[in-house]
């Protein structure tokens, strides 16, 4: 059994909440008392239908306004897999929430209303999926019951979307016709859609390969914390605690410590509170010991000598701005990549990307909330990174406003 983290994109009108409600309900992850609670709330509504969206809208303001403001995480499991759903709002003013939800997901389900086909928001969600380098995309063409389960309508939408996917470089796209409301092709294959030869959505989610998302070649181990018991028995113990974010480490491997460039050899590896191990791999937590007594501390990255990351003081990024105050070139921020934090300045904004059309608008003076821009950032110390496209785990950085301490930007290093 493993874990699949996915995000659903689409607005309430596309049936996103109904789909999530359906997955939770059919996998028996909704309990009687939770259903009773939303039934009680639904009584105040005119149509009297149970609103599954109430399951995901956890805040009073959301329920009052009938909108999803923030990312909610939902959980369900089948005997094959544990699933973590990032349920993010789909409207343009919540682009940042979708970026947040997508950053931790292995897969995205993009919902399309069969009556409308590829719409403006389908394009936007797909563009964000491509910017965040989502390894897998499922396009769920919903409300098939409202178009008479028509294969022609389905096929036309598939053809239309395939063009968009190609333009965006989305390689791994699977299409599925569904009706979330009636449960067609959700858990079981639908008899009304007998012309569809693929599997049900849940079956797809249970079987899709996610290992591809873990890169076992580029070895990256950011040091989070140095364990030094300083007791008599463990006087010389000095262990570098962290998590393998990519790759495999073995005892005896020659390593480089970045950004300093010092080299050494792994003398011991521990997992599990002191248990010795011969190797560790992503995403295991571990403690690494080195043969030589060199200066290593939090923020350093231990890497294998082949396939080194870049170590530079200037990076080009695609940046999603997440703050109400605008980003103006020349502004200084703290830049954090994994466990490393350095001072930085945003030198230049090259262009703003229109998330509805992919059009580049060159030379913007600033970036506002939810804007996605290409920018150049200069850092006070060298940053150890990979391009986001080649290694998501070491290519995403956040910007922190030092005056408010708030996370104001998410950057994908180019």
């Amino acid at each position, binding site marked *: 059994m493993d874990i699949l983290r996915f995000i659903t994109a689409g607005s309430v009108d596309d049936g996103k909440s109904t789909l999530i409600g359906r997955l939770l309900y059919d996998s028996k992850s909704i309990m009687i008392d939770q259903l009773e*609670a939303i039934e009680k709330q639904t009584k105040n509504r005119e149509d009297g239908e149970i609103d599954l969206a109430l399951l995901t809208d956890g805040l009073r303001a959301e329920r009052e306004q009938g909108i999803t403001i923030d990312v909610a995480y939902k959980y369900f*499991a089948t005997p094959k897999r544990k699933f973590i759903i990032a349920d993010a709002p789909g409207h343009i003013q919540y682009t940042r929430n979708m970026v947040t939800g997508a950053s931790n997901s292995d897969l995205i389900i993009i919902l399309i209303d069969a009556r409308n086909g590829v719409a403006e928001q389908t394009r936007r969600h797909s563009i964000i999926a491509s910017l965040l380098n989502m390894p897998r995309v499922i396009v769920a063409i919903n409300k098939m019951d409202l178009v008479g389960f028509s294969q022609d309508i389905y096929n036309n939408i598939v053809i239309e979307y395939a063009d968009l996917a190609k333009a965006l470089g989305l390689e791994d796209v699977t299409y599925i016709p569904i009706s979330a409301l009636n449960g067609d092709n959700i858990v079981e294959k639908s008899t009304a859609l007998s012309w569809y030869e693929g599997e049900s959505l849940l079956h797809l989610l249970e079987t899709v390969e996610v290992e591809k998302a873990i890169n076992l070649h580029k070895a990256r181990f950011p040091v989070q914390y140095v364990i030094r018991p300083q007791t008599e028995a463990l006087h010389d113990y000095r262990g570098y605690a962290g998590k393998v974010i990519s790759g495999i480490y073995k005892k005896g491997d020659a390593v480089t410590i970045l950004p300093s460039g010092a080299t050494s050899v792994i003398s011991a590896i521990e997992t599990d509170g002191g248990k010795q191990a011969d190797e560790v791999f992503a995403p295991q937590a571990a403690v690494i010991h080195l043969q030589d007594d060199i200066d290593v501390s939090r923020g350093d990255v231990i890497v294998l000598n082949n396939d080194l990351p870049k170590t530079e003081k200037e990076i080009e990024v695609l940046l999603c701005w997440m703050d109400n105050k605008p980003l103006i070139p020349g502004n200084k921020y703290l830049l954090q990549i994994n466990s490393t934090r350095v001072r930085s300045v945003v030198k230049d904004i090259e262009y703003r990307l229109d998330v509805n059309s992919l059009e580049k608008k060159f030379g913007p003076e600033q970036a506002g909330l939810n804007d996605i821009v290409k920018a150049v950032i200069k850092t006070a110390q060298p940053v150890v990174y990979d391009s986001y496209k080649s290694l998501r785990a070491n290519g995403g950085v956040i910007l922190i406003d030092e005056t408010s301490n708030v996370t104001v930007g998410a950057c994908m290093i180019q």
Partner: protein
Amino acid sequence: MSVHHLDYLDELESESIHIFREVAGQFEKPALLFSGGKDSIVLVHLALKAFRPGKFPFPLVHIDTGHNFPEALQFRDQLAESIGEKLVVRLVEDTIKTKKLTEQKGKFASRNQLQTYTLLDTIEEFGFDACIGGARRDEEKARAKERIFSVRDEFGQWDPKKQRPELWNTYNGKINKGENVRVFPISNWTELDVWNYIRREKIALPSIYFAHEREVLEYEGQYVAVSEYIRIDDTDVIVNKKVRYRTVGDMTCTAAVASNAVTLDDIITEIIATKTSERGETRIDDKVSEAAMEDRKKNGYF
């Protein structure tokens, strides 16, 4: 490739250890809130994995309402002693006396709200800048919206509209003096994950998690332990029943479930079959209103 494949419990464990070490790396004075309940016992187990053979970079802290199950308290003291880590206990009773707080009245008068005062005082007393807790997102829908690093102002308040975006596995714990961060390392675990992990790791639990005979009062379909902390009325029906606890909070606001489960296997079988959520079945305090948890969090509660 299959050799390099982690089981889901290993992946959850690794994520939690990573969060623990981020706390150790980012904060000056963290604390681990430890009640002797199963989720905080799992936290201690994860902390042992994250920091041994070193000491924990934080003390265990318990805000004792005075209404706790004696079995949980005994377990708390024994565990802290056996692992040789510091345990700080602060009593809600003391806060009530020194600050002249008014206690709730009624049949199940709860100190649940009052413990927030003691918690905030304790945070101030020690200058804690991060408090690690065992809350999970599957427990409650307001919790489903909370970040793993949840920033609270100097009054301990949660503002859901001002939450920081939390991207990738990068945690921003930067705060001003006086503020603190609540950190939830097992946010992504479900109740069943916790039980499966306890079974796999053979983690010891207080005896009240397993089926035992107990004098209980049947109230609106829930079984509440007979204790000196609740008011017994003449009309109450007291029965001797075989029960276990699915969650462990105060004796006044935690209900037991009828059960014959005496082993972890039995418990897991029952939890897989249950049709009621963990909090729905066992917490009297959540039933007050739709936004009960959201409101308590806004006031500094976990």
